[in-house]
């Protein structure tokens, strides 16, 4: 069954015909060509497909496109300013080494955004809790935590201690 929906996608009105069984992830990636949202598992376990619907982080692989009707959807493509200026979270992820293979990054950044929108100065415990549904295999998460703290303005850049034995 097809139906018409209308929703705000990255600040612009979208009106289109969708099939009832489409997930939001399918609509974004396959119909609208927004491939920044990733599919890591298709069953809501890895968080790579996280987008914001009315400022709440959702797994778009489990979220029916029909449910987006009348709502506001933000994907990674809509996070930076129209002039290309990165969102503070994007900049912080880049500058803190929070990105390796990058497949989890869009979802991770959007989950972090949902957190900071609600809680501008989260503790590390709160950050860990907010990101618990976003798996990352590369980074060990620590630089991601630092990035979220940096974006919330509560952090000094830290890097590993280097001991130069040859200088001794």
């Amino acid at each position, binding site marked *: 069954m097809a139906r018409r929906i209308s929703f705000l996608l990255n600040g612009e009105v979208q009106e289109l015909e969708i099939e009832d069984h489409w997930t939001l992830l399918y609509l974004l990636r396959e119909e609208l060509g*927004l*491939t*920044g*949202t*990733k*599919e*890591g*598992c*298709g*069953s809501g*376990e*890895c968080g*790579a497909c996280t987008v914001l619907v009315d400022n709440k982080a959702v797994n778009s692989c489990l979220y029916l496109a029909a449910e987006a009707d009348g709502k506001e959807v933000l*994907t*990674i*493509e809509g*996070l*930076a300013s129209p002039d290309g200026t*990165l969102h503070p979270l*994007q900049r912080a*992820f*880049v*500058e*803190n*080494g929070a*990105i*390796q*293979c*990058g*497949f*989890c*990054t*869009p979802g991770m*950044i959007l989950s972090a955004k949902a957190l900071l929108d609600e809680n501008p100065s989260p503790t590390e415990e709160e*950050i*860990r*809790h907010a*990101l*618990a*549904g*976003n*798996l*990352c*295999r*590369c*980074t*060990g*998460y*620590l*630089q*991601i*935590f630092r990035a979220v703290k940096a974006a919330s303005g509560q952090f000094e850049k830290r*890097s*590993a*201690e*280097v*001991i*130069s*034995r*040859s200088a001794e």
Partner: protein
Amino acid sequence: MKEFTAVGKPIPKLDAVDKATGRAMYIQDLKVPGMLYGKILYSKYPHARIVHMDTSKAKKLPGVRVVLTGDDIPPLKFGFYKDNTPLKRGKVRSYRDEVAAVAAVDPDVAQEALELIEVHYEPLPAVFDPEEALGEGAPLVHEEHRSNLLKLPWKMHLGDVEEARKQARYTVEDRFRVTWVTHCCMAPSGCIAMFDSSMNLTMYSNTQIPSLAQKDYLEALEGMGLKGRRVRVIKACIGGAFGSKLDTYAYEYIAILLAQATRKPVCILFDRKEEFVATSGRQPALIKIAQGCDGEGRLLFRDVSMILDNGAYTSWGATTPSVMMMPISSLYRVPNVRYEARCVYTNNTYSQAMRGYGNPQATFAIESSMDRLAEEAGIDRVDFRLRNANEPGDVTPQEFKITTCGLKDCIEEVRKRLGWGEPKQKDEGIGMACLIHVGGGARVYKSDGCGTIIKLDDYGKVDVFTGATDMGQGADTVIAQVVAEELGVEVEDVRVMHTDTDVCPWDVGAHASRTTFVACNSALGAARNIKERILEIASRQMGELPENLDIRNREVFSTREPEKRLELGKLLRKAHFSPSGQMLMAEYFYDPANENLDKTFRGNLSMTYTFGAHGVRVKVDRETGKVKVLKYVAAHDVGKAINPMLLEGQVYGGALMGIGYALTEQLLLDKGQVMNPNFRDYKILTAKDAVDVETCIVETLDKDGPFGAKGIGEPGCVPTAPAIANAIYDAVGVRMRELPMTPERVLAAILEQEKGG
């Protein structure tokens, strides 16, 4: 000492902005006009004869373009042992065996077609335990091989272990067991195979071995009657690899066969379940180890034997013993060593390389045994390690020439930072484990080389074409840093192309933690060549001898009269737009002077070796068996940190993967079937479990490394499991001999101990 401008700086990864904005294109994001979607039908049995197949219904489904079975394709063989075929004919040997494949106009149609394929199997007795597989009368996985034991040369004896055993004052003997684990790359596997009108193949892939994959595909084309054609491998952005993409797999050949049959591009993308079931992880091993030392605590011998579950087919997993030999012979000074490994066919999934290439498994046994021996000899565990630690200038029994070696510094740093010897709370314990790994390439193939081409444009911008592969670890960035440093330009002026075999030179692959060492040395060689030419041109333009010129801040300047300088872009334009103009390009192929191991497994495998020590403080809950990591220190001798921020990321990521290996991860196989092919049941660690690893980077400035650097991709995950096992023993007195050390197992060990008195 010269102040660096790019090297040693925490430069963000070159593609980080693309990845943070959703622009980076992974294999899942690519579409080629006219592309079909391929799907694979897997076996329903772990071991069975294929009696009959009927694909007629599937072929009639609208939208299906082709259905292939083993009977429809030429007899292609692939894999390290050439014992695998893209689509199986006659019999299946594991649940992941590919029996048919479909190409259709969309993935749903392809999936529906799979369900219409009828396969009649005659189940055969199967074998899942490698020890049983070695027994008399065990079912043969490959009948033509006549035995389930692979014919591989893994037998090393250096010195005289029997004699040393007689001399030893203290000896310990143990058995350890490790299990199947898998890479869990966040992006599932995939490829697009596409032929042009002359049947040259373009393969969009996420391989970490573009040049060797190209060779594999060329061989396949030859077998398909397409000899002499060209293969171009284009890498999409790689969503994690960790060794999983070091080989070519059936799905890739199937995509090629489907593309040949349909004359259309064919895309195959794995879903998460396939990623768990049909990719190849780290293999289980049963490890026996004995070690002995003299009265002063000096190691006299190490004697190790292993049985490895190879699974149903052979990939690089069967060659991990060649790397296990390295810690066995060369972690600490141990004069007499013996090692034997038997790789055994079973009807399980099959094994591959995974971060560390055998080293984590071997080091788990060695470092657990080291603690046992220290206790036996009554020596503090740290002192025992220091007493036996490698030193610069050592030549190990395998004739590895240790150049730089920061092992003792790493041990001391961990001891200090962990508060070794300080009072502990009840049920708390501390543990340490060390590592050796190749840090200057590893000559496991005929060449350990990497090529680089550099060109400069009219504006002083630099394009670097490297054979190296970036898969998130930061190869692109460190290469840009060393080139920027050498050419006196900014990192942002350097673009690194590493994605296309038509334009990038050869490289053996992203393995053995070799890319920083080998690819940066190669890039440095090319940069030096082009710099020499820049300075020659500058010499003519500026009237100064080349030896008195250098480049800095995008300007060539005279070292005698620093005010005499010329902007690089201006110099290049003048050189280009003059009569008999020239543009600057340079190439370099770097192949380290390391050695293949000889028949006795002697030879200097790597130009340099990397060392490290991890220490951990844990608390064990006696009621539940749960192990909580309270503090974790990772000290690594890296030669030189070209990019401390990215380096730290390698250590964090490696350590957490290692902690998962130690405590939570296992691919559960029940009679060959994966029981937990999802992230709910296969437990990689989450943000909530992340351990606050304290990193300590020890710089030893290796003379052969680019700016002194050695590799760091794998070491972070090598010593984690034994460090934790040693801490658990220290906390509650139980010796964990099997991975993962789940709460159930720890609790069982505690209860056993209490029962035993």
